């Protein structure tokens, strides 16, 4: 670690400015921007311009048809959305989705990654491959299969429960269970990916550190707690960040195929509601307004998470 910083110091001092012709100097100043230009153009065209448009549309009333006029309605769209009980319900549900996803998409993969680490290479790979399979199943197919598995009358899960003498559970049509069912399916789909990331990070940990700890008489648990977990913290924080910022979005296809936000709005979340506004009822204004609300809300959340990330992560460098 120390030899690295010693290495960079002399290089910096060697880079002393030397006199240049004005044209060359101009090109030199311009060059980094030229290199950046394609990326910046992509950002502007695909992200910033639509973002600005969404912002403008959120103050307008328009039904997506090119022939119909866009009417300026001021803050009406925001007022109408805040007025809507379904919006608050969706916001609450989004929170439950995130809370439900964190253990499934971060906690469980961490445990799997740590415990499969010490397995013999062959069974470890088989084990991880099995866990990874859900990741490569297309979401809509996965949703359809889960619908059959969970069917209250003919689903294999409920047949099993009935065999044990338990009343069939309405996994998708009971408002108090449906949200957790969707959360579980979303999480199930993510376990493989998160395990892969964590296993890779875990394998990248310098073995000599663990060897040293072992020589000092550290137990397995102490190694995990004091060496592996701190060194995995950047990866863990990245996963937490991804799940919090994107998790509710990943549930979209399952909500759409399995419940369409129902029963009684119990599985809708803010992303699904946004889509329903925009493409279910062709109200671009409402959709854009909720997108702006979402953008601001998650922007703040992301800033908080990044601040947290800087604080709690530990880098081995």
């Amino acid at each position, binding site marked *: 670690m120390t030899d690295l910083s010693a290495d960079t110091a002399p290089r910096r001092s060697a880079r002393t400015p030397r006199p240049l012709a004005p044209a060359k100097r101009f090109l030199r100043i311009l060059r980094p921007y030229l290199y950046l230009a394609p990326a910046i153009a992509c950002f502007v065209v695909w992200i910033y311009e639509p973002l600005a448009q969404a912002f403008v549309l959120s103050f307008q*009333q328009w*039904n*997506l*048809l*090119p*022939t119909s006029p866009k*009417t300026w309605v001021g803050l009406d769209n925001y007022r*109408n959305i805040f*007025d*809507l*009980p*379904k919006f608050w319900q969706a916001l609450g549900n989004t929170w439950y989705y995130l809370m439900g996803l964190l253990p499934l998409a971060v906690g469980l993969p961490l445990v799997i990654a740590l415990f499969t680490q010490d397995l013999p290479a062959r069974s470890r790979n088989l084990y991880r491959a099995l866990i990874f399979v859900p990741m490569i199943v297309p979401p809509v197919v996965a949703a359809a299969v889960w619908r059959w598995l969970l069917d209250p*009358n003919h689903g294999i899960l409920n047949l099993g429960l009935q065999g044990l003498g338990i009343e069939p559970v309405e996994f998708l*049509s009971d*408002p108090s269970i449906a949200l957790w069912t969707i959360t579980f399916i979303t999480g199930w789909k993510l376990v493989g990916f998160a395990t892969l990331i964590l296993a890779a990070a875990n394998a990248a940990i310098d073995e000599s550190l663990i060897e040293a700890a072992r020589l000092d008489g550290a137990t397995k648990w102490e190694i995990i707690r004091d060496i592996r977990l701190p060194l995995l913290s950047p990866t863990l924080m990245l996963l937490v960040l991804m799940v919090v910022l994107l998790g509710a979005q990943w549930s979209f296809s399952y909500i759409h195929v399995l*419940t*369409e936000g*129902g*029963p*009684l*709005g119990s599985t809708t979340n803010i992303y699904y509601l946004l889509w*329903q*506004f925009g493409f*279910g*009822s*062709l*109200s671009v204004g*409402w959709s854009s307004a909720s997108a702006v609300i979402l953008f601001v809300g998650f922007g703040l959340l992301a800033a908080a998470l990044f601040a947290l990330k800087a604080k709690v992560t530990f880098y081995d460098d």
Partner: protein
Amino acid sequence: MKTSLIALAFATSATMTSAQTIPESVTEPVTITFYNYNLASAGNGADATNKMIAEFEAANPNVTVKGVPVPPQDIATRLQADLVAGQPIDLVQMPFAALGFAAENLGAVALEDIVSEAELAGHFEGMVPNGLELGKLDGKTYGLAYTFSTPVLFYNADIFREVGLDPENPPATWEALKAAGDQIKATTDYLPLATGIYGPTALDWLMQGVIASNGGAVINADRTKMTFAEPEAIEAVEMLRSLAQAGITRNLGITAQMEGMAAGNTAMYLQTSAIQGYLVKGAEDNFELRAAAMPAFGDKPVKPSNSGSALSLHSTDPAKQRAAWELMKFLTSKRGYTIITSEIGYLPLRPEIVEDPEYLGEWVKDHPLLQPNLAQLKNLAPYVPLPGPNYLQIGISMMDAMEMATFGEDDDVKATLTEAQERTQRLMP
């Protein structure tokens, strides 16, 4: 740019069509497109529609019909996009709610402008006048009434017999339905009642009929005030809530409703007659499927709401207009309605074919299913579209509240509906 293109297309079609009538017959081979929503629904109507197209092509060798499946809620957007892209649009199965938009913006042609008066009158002869009237705007036929359906109460006669109910006397009122439901619930595991009242595809069309049957309405006559928290509507929703509380009905998605009924696990199903074909297939060799009229509230008259579509003609080329008009005539002919009624489940808008053994006569004897639907044709209450640019939000908010009031935790139906009524009133134009 897009606007001017559409305006141009519309203007061209207007000048071309008003100036001339179309040729007497199709003499050269032409291909026409038929935008159709029955084609877009897998179980319900695609086969029958393809069959009609095939029969038409066999009888008119010069005409090739290209079916374009489009779900009903996407019709207007899809047509607009295709018009701008220069795709040929000849014939469209247009939901009545979108007909005004089609005439104003999508170049729908008035039949009176292209077809001679005598030929039109000859074809209209025998069709239900109320239906034809629905396709007229400013006195001209922009849409030829095509598919009509009403809500009917399908029921499984075998389940009725099993629990000791009389399949000859299906429940005619909601009270009788509740009693029958209790009986089914007490002795069997079948779901007594499924309804298509709630769900994203239904919006409020079936609910309008339920509330109208109790003497109420979701909106007042001049469409300025929401009225779904008035006593009649509250009473109707409270009745539904009592059914839900008693476990007689459950909040199911449309697929689960349809599958449950077709598989013989549901005793009664209140739903559009348009799914009849699907249910008949499921019932075959499985159970006896019958149908009754929508239940009444006590002795108040039942006011079933109708839903449906018209055929609108969008071709600009006279030869294609003739071809499309020939197809329209075939689809709404006695033969056409024989297929539509027996294989999809829509109403025959030529009622005389029901008696005629050459057409539906024999089929009706074997399938008494059609009778309640036909009987309801007399007292149809047309679906009242909600007004303004926020009409869908109004409808969705209203139906969300009613669904909550029916299946939710809160017993206070009145409070739920009143709150939603005030909220949706603010969205009115």
